[in-house]
């Protein structure tokens, strides 16, 4: 797992992928921060994270699309699948490497905290729960992106599947409020209110685990189908 994690991180930061992701995310969240927090003079900046989670819908697949689809396209999956590493380790290694990139991005955005602290005492507990919620949401996003990447050998298709899924889940609440429990943004909303909701946490964690297990099963099954 560590071998894969290390290599994936290298790939993220030796190629533009990691920088494109971090750059896009920070650009959008900075605009949001300026427009909705700094400009009106609000001390609670958890809404920056809430709104910037929307941008994740569009860009998370940048991190995940190449995970397996790219390897299959280049044939390098032969290298990892014939190595003595277990499929579970490979899947988790790739999953964690993307999480690390997102955490790095979060750390960058602490600059906003410093800016707010200059004007007054920020609401740290809300910020804490928002960050936890943000991390859980990212895990769900990444695990689904990884799953999408494992079912195709075209990274662009993996991107479209991932994007379409989260896009649909985000706007499905516009049809009816009943869908809010299956909307990822709906699940995330509670965290921004300063609490750690049990149901929502379980929902996100379960979804993540389910996607990871499905990815493992798909890769295992492919040995027979190929």
């Amino acid at each position: 797992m560590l071998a894969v994690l290390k290599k994936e991180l290298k790939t993220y930061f030796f190629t533009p992928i990691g920088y494109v992701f971090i750059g896009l995310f920070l650009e959008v969240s900075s605009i949001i921060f300026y427009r909705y927090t700094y400009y009106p003079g609000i001390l609670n900046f958890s809404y920056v994270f809430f709104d910037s989670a929307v941008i994740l819908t569009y860009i998370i697949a940048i991190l995940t699309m190449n995970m397996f689809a790219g390897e299959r396209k280049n044939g390098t999956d032969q290298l990892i699948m014939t190595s003595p590493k277990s499929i579970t380790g490979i899947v988790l290694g790739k999953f964690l490497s993307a999480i690390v990139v997102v955490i790095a991005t979060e750390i960058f955005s602490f600059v906003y905290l410093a800016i707010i602290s200059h004007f007054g005492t920020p609401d740290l507990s809300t910020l804490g729960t928002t960050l936890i919620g943000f991390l859980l949401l990212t895990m769900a996003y990444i695990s689904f992106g990884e799953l999408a990447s494992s079912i195709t050998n075209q990274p662009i298709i993996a991107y479209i599947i991932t994007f379409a899924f989260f896009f649909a889940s985000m706007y499905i609440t516009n049809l009816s409020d009943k869908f809010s429990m299956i909307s990822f943004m709906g699940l995330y909303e509670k965290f921004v209110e300063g609490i750690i909701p049990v149901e929502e946490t379980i929902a996100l964690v379960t979804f993540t685990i389910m996607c990871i297990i499905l990815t493992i099963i798909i890769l295992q099954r492919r040995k027979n189908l190929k």
Partner: protein
Amino acid sequence: MIKVENVTKKYGSFTAVNNIKFDIKEGEIVGFLGKNGAGKTTTMNMITGYIEPTEGRIEIDGYDMNKKPKKAKKQIGYMPEAVPIYNDLTVKEFVDYMADLKGVKRKQKKEEVQRVIEETGLKEVQNTLNRHLSRGYKQRVSMAGALIGNPKVLILDEPTVGLDPQQVKQIRDLIKSLRKDHTVLLSSHILSEVSQICERVMIIDKGKILAIDTPKNLEDKVSDKNILTVTVEDNDNKIDEVVEKITDIKEIKLVNENSDGTKQYAIFAKDNKDIRKEIAENFAKNEITILELKKTEATLEDAFLQLINNYSIDEENNENEEEVIKEMKKKNEEDSIEEGGKN
């Protein structure tokens, strides 16, 4: 070292590999020959654990690939046909990653990476990005990935394809030097390569193994057929009469009538007898001038072609003889085209 027992691979109703069975001993270099689509790569992918066989068992150094995949895979270095390497990594980083994947211990890793880089002649490009390398270097990088961790078994899928002659020689020499402490299975469709490097050859066609033997034995089996090629000047057309008198001739067939009036025949002898002397004497007595008389020398290529054309060595029947004649005719045509080109 590599034990393949009754392995079958099916894709839906299509059988890619059909009930194959072989055993490769420690320290052997075995060549795997077959046409494109014969099942070479599928077999290699199954041996390396990339895909699972539909039926059968594969054992590497005593470890069952299905039951103990980690231990079995650790014994194998695989160089896939498409030479997949990570373009975003440098040569050194790639080899380093392969070492991590193979589970090379951290203490030995630095040394091991350098050893492999030197062995494959990559020292001067070790800090170059893989994407900037030429095909020959990429091939070597892939080879380095297979060699890292000093695995007991090396599976090389067409290691020299797409290389220039000098690079081919370098890779061949490298493979030969591996003989000491590795068991090698390499696939190829360049026959001269296989007969040069390998101790044993496995011929596969349509998912079935047709023969496993040394290159020499395979060649001998084919030349045992004892076919003579005779070019004669026979203006009175006496050859049929003469041949009837020689009891050891099974059959004679006209291959070609040359423009200068000479004729080329293929003569099949009975029971593998050497009948060159008899022919020479009898033809001379009857004023048939022999311009050329030679025993058809078989190469590994012939063995290969005949095996995959379902040539049965034990039973010589007319159908097969016709095939041989067809081949001869084809060869003649090719020669005359070449000559025409020269003129």
